[in-house]
């Protein structure tokens, strides 16, 4: 056991580190203030330029085949590059969904013309993609979507609403799942498309979240016309497309986990006084720190085990699926108990008063979303139970019923 790179990995890391040192500082960003349109526009310009630079340097799509603008590298190289890139505050966010989920779907399901048209511009940062999947009535039950598509001649007319679409407001293209035949059982009547986000009838509205952010959108479709040539897969066969896309999403999300930071709490406990004296001398606080610490460390070393598999050229095991179901509730507890240390003044969110610039108060408001996004706690436990432990699926009552005969509520 060790935590070292193999010689090949070390060489790649040195090369990437060198390239980053020369290139990244030009693109470093203070991060978007997403409530401020002008700053966001500037951020997007910087992000596109950074992506172009990565493409130029050969780091835009490390594991993709060279024919698609990739480098033909190994997954561990992608990880190493990401580790190194993380040292710089570079604007990579807007391309994660496109390169992580959408363009791979184009590569799998599009024809040669589509691949030729879209892959290059996405890799070079010329076009941003979004994923139009969730709906108000289709969250955990993704196949429950209701956005309608009807074929008229060579076009499809789309009506309905999507929700939780990241970056829809600055995206050039979107990948869209629709229901083309509601008389079929729910998994049978779906059809996939891609579309120009500037198409007439597409309306994007930001969703304000409870922690103040607004990086998600509602997207409304009013008689939006999509050429049949922009369909992926056969009509009614969209669930197959969805499954490949969801597989990509899961990989992307487990890579992008928020790490709960027990260090912040430790630091706070070192500064704050309780009735009985310094918080860090309180045994209950100390036990809490220890409990969180072993969970955070456990997750960290679980990731290291997965990286070990990647480094050996193996596929990581299912251990990764436990990440968010541990870290999200822990972040929530950290938020609450961090505020608790502030006692009567613990609810203040003034950054000059609240410790660590109100990090705990933010965690308290952010964690509920983390427990939902990318699979709720409950869905993730189902996934562990079914895919890792091989337990039976839930009893399904909706598999063989026509979609339009299923009961509906809100």
């Amino acid at each position, binding site marked *: 056991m060790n935590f070292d790179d193999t010689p090949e990995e070390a060489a790649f890391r040195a090369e990437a580190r060198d390239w980053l040192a020369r290139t990244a500082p030009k693109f470093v960003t203070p991060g978007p203030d997403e409530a401020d349109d002008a700053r966001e526009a500037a951020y997007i310009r910087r992000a596109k330029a950074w992506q172009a630079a990565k493409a130029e340097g050969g780091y835009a799509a490390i594991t993709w085949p060279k024919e698609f603008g990739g480098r033909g590298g190994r997954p561990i190289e992608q990880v190493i590059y990401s580790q190194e890139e993380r040292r710089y505050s570079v604007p990579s966010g807007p391309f994660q969904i496109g390169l992580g989920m959408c363009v791979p779907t184009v590569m799998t399901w599009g024809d040669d013309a589509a691949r030729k048209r879209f892959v290059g511009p996405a890799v070079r940062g010329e076009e941003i993609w979004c994923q139009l999947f969730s709906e108000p009535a289709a969250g955990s039950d993704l196949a429950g979507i209701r956005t309608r598509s009807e074929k008229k001649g060579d076009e499809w007319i789309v009506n309905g609403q999507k929700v939780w679409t990241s970056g829809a407001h600055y995206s050039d293209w979107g990948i869209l799942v629709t229901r083309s035949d509601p008389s079929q059982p729910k998994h049978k009547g779906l059809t996939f498309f891609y579309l120009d986000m500037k198409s007439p009838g597409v309306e994007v509205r930001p969703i304000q979240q409870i922690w103040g952010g607004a990086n998600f959108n509602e997207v409304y479709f009013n008689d939006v016309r999509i050429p049949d040539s922009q369909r992926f897969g056969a009509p009614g066969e969209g669930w197959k497309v969805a499954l490949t896309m969801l597989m990509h999403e899961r990989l992307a999300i487990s890579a992008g986990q928020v790490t709960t930071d027990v260090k912040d709490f430790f630091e706070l406990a070192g500064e704050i006084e309780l009735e009985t004296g310094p918080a860090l001398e309180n045994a209950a606080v100390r036990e809490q720190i220890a409990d969180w610490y072993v969970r955070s460390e456990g997750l960290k070393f679980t990731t290291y085990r997965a990286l070990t598999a990647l480094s050996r050229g193996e596929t990581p095991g299912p251990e990764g699926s436990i990440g968010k179901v541990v870290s999200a509730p822990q972040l929530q507890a950290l938020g609450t108990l961090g505020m608790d240390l502030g*006692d009567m003044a613990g*609810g203040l969110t003034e950054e000059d008063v609240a410790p660590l610039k109100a990090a705990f108060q933010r965690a308290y408001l952010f964690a509920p979303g983390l427990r939902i996004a990318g699979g709720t706690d409950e869905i993730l436990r189902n996934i562990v139970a079914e895919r890792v432990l091989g337990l039976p699926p839930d009893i399904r009552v909706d598999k063989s019923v026509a979609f339009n005969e299923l009961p509906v509520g*809100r």
Partner: protein
Amino acid sequence: MNLDFSDDQKMLKDQARKVLSEKSPPGANRAVLEGTAPYDAKLWAQVGELGWLGCAIPEAYGGLGLGYLELCVIAEELGRAIAPVPVSSSIYLAAEAILRLGTEEQKQAHLPRLAAGEVVGTLALAEGVGVPRPERLETRLEGGRLTGRKIAVPDGLGAGLAVVAAREGQGVSIALVDLSEKGVGRAAERSIDPSRKSATLTFEGARAERLGPAGEGWAELQAVLSRAAVLVAFEQVGGADACLAIARDYALSRYAFGRLIGSFQAIKHKLADMYTHTELARSNAYYAAWALSTDAPELPLAAASARVSASHAFDYAAKEMLQTLGGMGITWEADGHLYLRRAAGLRLLLGAPRGWKERLVRELERRNAA
């Protein structure tokens, strides 16, 4: 055995619930949360007119003199309605302090106005983050003048009268300050629950009268906090109950995988746990209500139990209600977060549960030693 409210008290409670469901829907909370007003002035006026504020204040001081059990049932309904009004600061804290410690003159001067809602009272204790300790207070009372700075003063933005903990000589005294006096500064604060707006108060030699004896205020303050803890526990039980009702309604109307989500064990058991925590909190609160209303020696222990239990119940209920609502719960425009914020606000209002657990065990030790 009679650990329940009387029929009259239950009628009062039903009435309060009806009034509040009309006058204090979640939108009322949201209006204050998103606005700059310190609280909902119209609702406050109504609450005053209905006599709720004076519920436990003797008739001699302008109250109805009904008693604490009546105030408990009203508190539960205020909590259920996450009402954006400063009842806890003004009544459970300020009026209680004056009632317990004030001279006859002070009572006559202040209680009628508090009972009528003509002035909002509050209690100013914290001076920084962390648990306030008597030896670390820097605000000083000297010769009837108050100097210092208090933060996170609950409902401080709209308060006109403050009960303030301050050092005097070697001890801690409690000062009573008219916040319109010269030398009083006030700054709005952002906080986790802006539906009731806290403030920083600064005192630069502001005129103040003392409440109770000099230098012996700390123990009295703890007694006031204990009494308030019972009433806040009822608000928390009401809030937890509201969260359970929201989650239940949603679970009974939202479908996923062709079924009501309320038919999945993950949701059923979550809601059963919400119910369980809330019932335990309710039972502890009832016992504390008995202790409060009879001024029983068990009050400090009962109050600490009620506060610990109710803080946990509301925290759990608010979080798991949001979880049940899924994506809906985390949008600003849905009402879920109003409860999440109130849960945090009430949890911290009288100090975090950790300190109350410590008090509780101290009371157990005292009882054991006796």
